């Protein structure tokens, strides 16, 4: 097995819109170890979602290489489960059918996936909502379905694109703790995109701070906080020290962006 679960080498992404070249990502080097929970922290428009899309296989890099478990990423695959910001559930399917979509699609017999679906619905606290449609669920509950439907595929890598970004503060806390408890059971490799400093420090093993456009990785910090973690950790001195460091990096970055007329 290669050393890194996810590896980006010299990755760049250029978009061409109305004859204008926009460099979304430039020279990204990133390596995420097996079972590492890695957060990418950056301002909006820094290309952090683009980065995730390339690891997911939705988007191709303009330059450089994206490898997962040593193999170049060609297309989306259930081994790389994605949780989107907007839960992106199938509105015509019930909770049960959304979560069992993957196994059904892969031709797994019902007898085999049924206990798994039940177990994951249980883990995300959605038992009793199996027959509900997404329209009947709150934002937090939708995102629980979004998490359960990728976990049921047993992914090696979990890609999360600001999954709690559109939730209210209280729901977000509940969901962060839920994610921590789910992760403690499986320890998948996670790439977690966020613009929330506290969220990144609370859940991740490492936080890579990105610059504004063109997106680059400014610095990678290791979060040495004991696990299992809960929200209480956010008041500890170590946490605050890390937060100060990240804030300084971000302030530096936004000042640079402002001076270049980007902010």
């Amino acid at each position: 097995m290669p050393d890194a679960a996810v590896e980006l080498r010299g990755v760049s992404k250029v978009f061409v819109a109305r004859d204008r070249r926009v460099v979304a990502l430039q020279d990204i080097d990133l390596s995420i170890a097996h079972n590492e929970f890695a957060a990418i922290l950056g301002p909006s428009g820094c290309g952090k979602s683009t980065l995730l899309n390339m690891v997911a296989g939705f988007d191709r890099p303009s330059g450089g290489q994206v490898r997962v478990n040593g193999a170049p990423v060609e297309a989306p695959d259930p081994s790389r489960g994605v949780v989107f910001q907007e839960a992106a559930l199938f509105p015509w399917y019930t909770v049960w059918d959304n979560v069992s979509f993957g196994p059904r699609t892969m031709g797994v017999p019902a007898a085999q996936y049924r206990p798994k679906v039940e177990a994951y619905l249980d883990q995300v606290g959605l038992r009793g909502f199996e027959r509900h449609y997404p329209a009947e669920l709150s934002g937090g509950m939708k995102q629980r379905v979004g998490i359960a439907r990728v976990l049921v595929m047993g992914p090696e890598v979990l890609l999360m694109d600001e999954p709690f970004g559109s939730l209210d503060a209280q729901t977000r806390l509940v969901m962060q703790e839920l994610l921590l408890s789910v992760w403690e059971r499986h320890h998948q490799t996670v790439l977690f995109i966020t613009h929330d400093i506290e969220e990144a420090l609370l859940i991740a093993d490492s936080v890579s701070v990105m610059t504004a456009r063109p997106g680059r990785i400014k610095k990678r910090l290791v979060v040495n906080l004991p696990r299992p973690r809960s929200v209480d950790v956010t008041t500890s001195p170590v946490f605050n020290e890390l937060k100060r460091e990240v804030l300084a990096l971000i302030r530096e970055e936004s000042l640079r962006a402002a001076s270049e007329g980007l902010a």
Partner: protein
Amino acid sequence: MLPKRGPWFLLLPLALLALWHLAVQQRWVIEGIIPGPTQVAESWYRWIFGSPTRSLSPYSGTWVANVLYSSRRVLQGFLFAAAVGIPLGIFVGWNRLVARLVDPTIQMLRPVPITAWLPFSIAVFGIYDAGALFLIGLGAFYPIVINTTHGVRDTNLLLLRAARMLGAREGTVLFKVVLPSALPSIFTGLRLGVGIAWTAVIVAEMIAVKSGLGYVLWDAYYVGRMDICVATMFSVGLLGFLSDQAILLASRLLLRWRTLEAHA
């Protein structure tokens, strides 16, 4: 303020009926040409329930038969249009190559009104059912294919990505994601299509075939039976309304998830 409950929707139709009655009674319209509502109602009643053999009127008791003629043509033409329009719309919306191949032709033919196709249709199919079905099918085809195409193209990119990362192959994506996502739009196309089908059947029957409500309408006009003409108008309106309601009902049953969304 009107109270919320009550048959308020009847208010305007009843006022219009009263105005019609008054216009005939007060001779605001040419006497003897435009029939009053009661005369139309009587003629319509005899047209439906009259005895075909013991009456002097040639229309007596022929309503059901003509309704069936027209309805069957609408149904056949409409089903044909849906059977071609929905799959074609899906392919045009899904595949850029198919779109480039087919879409310009559809857009070029669409502005030709179905009424303009009439002589051509008679020349090709003669005065048989096939000519009427061609017109009805063609008229209903355009809104169905165009709305299906739009529905397919409007499919949320995130849902496509979600399906693919869950292991769905293109066939599954098409049938389990694109099709349900396009269904509301497809139903819009079907509703517009059935409306045009009723327009087309009347035009076709007026000229290209010798049965059905459109034929009766033109025939009654020629012999000066304006009461039958007006009764035909009401009949077609009623049938159009009922077929629209039938599609609406089918869409409500199939799109239950969507009514939930509307109430959320």
